[in-house]
């Protein structure tokens, strides 16, 4: 009996990847895995389902528990689908890898889940690839992961992309100097996170900040460009914290020039995300024609401490789906992949032997299992777009090639 059609639908925000898309995803994933491996990163795989408590850490994406898929196990404990990979990896490091030699270089390619309203670039199941470099506090570590992110995007085939690089401590240093209550500061952070600069300006004017202080804060998102930004940002170095932040930004940027990737990197002090999570460098990647970031990352020295293993760390995640979306926009749709060769006929022994040999040589070979006659086989191959057809008869005749 046919099933009710509704039961055959899939939940909102989920997708089936058909052969063409699935292949593109796999190719990209493999390319990145190879790349990360050549940079000395090792893959880890963590479970899709974890205890809610282990996942409920505020991360750069501001994922709160109401944005997770949650359910109960039979003991009544709350489980959730992982909404990102950094927290599970922090847990693995803090519990199972803490006796390793640091720094640790780990990478992953995994699906993560978010209970968002499906909208601009937000599916509920998301494919991400990324790296975490754990146990190194200096600017060279940050520069390494950013250079690696650039390389990963470059190898994906994206032509026009940019990494915007900021430093959250510059903002945090500025905030320290503002004569605002904790509540007001929380409000400032939430307005900055929402990018509502109009309300921010109104609030700063109303709360009686002297104009120069308010101006410094409002100037942040306009500081954007190359090395000159470091000079333009000098007035923001109002205290030691902000000064060190700027200094660190300069060091990372200089290292990125040594990597030769500065053409892909813009300095941008307006990149402000995950205030409770990032502790230094923050960055986002963008590409022309896509209205939302394709990757993001930064330094998160506080996270491992939250799981009982105080340790500096930096890393990034790339949205595989988003990169694929951007690529599909700039490329002609690829034809559905077909095998190199189709072999048919009634000489089954021969067919299987030949197929095995060719496959070992790396060719993709399909064997006809419909027992088609020669004409039918050719017609079928033509329809599929398979270029090479071989037909083996039992009688020992020479094979006919099409």
């Amino acid at each position: 009996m046919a099933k009710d059609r509704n039961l055959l639908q899939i939940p909102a925000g989920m997708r089936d990847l058909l052969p063409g898309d699935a292949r593109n995803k796999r190719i990209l994933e493999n390319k990145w895995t190879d790349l990360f491996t050549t940079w000395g990163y090792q893959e880890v795989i963590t479970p899709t389902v974890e205890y809610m408590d282990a996942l409920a850490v505020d991360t750069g994406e501001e994922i709160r528990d109401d944005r997770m898929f949650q359910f109960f196990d039979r003991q009544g404990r709350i489980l959730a689908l992982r909404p990102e990979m950094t927290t599970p990896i922090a847990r693995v490091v803090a519990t199972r890898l803490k006796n390793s030699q640091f720094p640790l270089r780990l990478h992953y390619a995994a699906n993560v889940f978010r209970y968002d309203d499906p909208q601009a670039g937000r599916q509920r199941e998301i494919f991400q690839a990324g790296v975490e470099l754990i146990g190194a506090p200096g600017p060279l570590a940050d520069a390494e992961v950013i250079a690696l992110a650039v390389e990963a995007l470059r190898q994906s085939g994206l032509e026009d992309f940019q990494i915007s690089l900021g430093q959250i401590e510059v903002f945090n240093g500025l905030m320290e100097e503002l004569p605002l209550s904790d509540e007001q500061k929380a409000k400032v952070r939430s307005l900055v996170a929402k990018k509502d600069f109009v309300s921010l300006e109104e609030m700063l004017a109303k709360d009686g900040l002297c104009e120069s202080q308010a101006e410094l804060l409002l100037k942040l998102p306009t500081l954007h460009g190359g090395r000159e930004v470091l000079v333009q940002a000098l007035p923001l170095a109002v205290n030691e914290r902000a000064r060190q932040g700027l200094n660190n930004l300069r060091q990372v940027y200089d290292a990125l020039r040594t990597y030769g990737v500065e053409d892909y990197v813009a300095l941008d002090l307006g990149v402000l995300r995950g205030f409770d999570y990032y502790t230094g460098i923050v960055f986002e990647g963008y590409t022309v024609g896509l209205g939302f970031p394709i990757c993001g990352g930064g330094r998160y020295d506080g996270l491992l401490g939250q799981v009982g293993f105080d340790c500096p760390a930096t890393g990034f995640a790339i949205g595989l789906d988003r990169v694929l979306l951007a690529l599909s926009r700039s490329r002609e749709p690829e034809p559905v992949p077909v095998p190199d060769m189709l072999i048919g006929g009634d000489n089954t022994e021969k067919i299987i032997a030949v197929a095995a040999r060719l496959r070992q040589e790396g060719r993709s070979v399909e064997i006809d299992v419909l027992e088609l006659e020669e004409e039918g086989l050719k017609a079928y191959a033509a329809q599929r777009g398979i270029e090479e057809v071989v037909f083996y008869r039992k009688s020992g005749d020479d094979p006919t090639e099409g």
Partner: protein
Amino acid sequence: MKDMLTIALPKGKLFEDAIPLLQEAGLCTKNLSEDSRKLVIRHEKERLNYIICRPTDIPTFVEYGAADIGIVGKDTIVEQDKDIMELVDLKFGHCRFVVALPETAAKKGRDLTQFNHRRVATKFPKVAESFFAEKGIQVEIIKLHGNIELAPAVGLADMIIDIVSTGRTLKENNLVAVEDIFHATARLIANRVSYRLKHQRIQPVVERIRSLVKDREVTY
């Protein structure tokens, strides 16, 4: 593509105020007219496109990056919760969000706490929800798409939350504004990726518009 700037403009009352501002800011505004049936206006030489669409759709065009920047009322922004950058208060298109009661009810006493579990009709359920949540009043919100003032007259709702500019519509329908929720004006918004990738194109426009409206008073 990086040098092409696309601006989304809303049909309706904000349109007329937006054009002279863009012109003053030095942008080509030739052929921009609401009456023309054209929805996309291209200025190839200036590397500038305009999209003309419904005000409620502006944040969507901008969020997806189909438009780089746009002009839209704060009233539209608050209801949609889109991921966009809000850059400049343009000071025109003023309106206020109010709670309004039928005159007869208003005369008896204006305390909204007496309206627990009553029905409120509105085009802005999110605004309504957060307003009443803050007040600690539980209400049933009825989402309508237009002519909100009709709802109390026919017994669909006990009160309404709506935007008001002159207050005439309320008066004509025997409604009285009993509480201001907030004031809204037109805003210059930007896509967060465009703002970074097309910074060299967008930042000067933003700066010019900001300095043009800086000393303007909101026109009520």
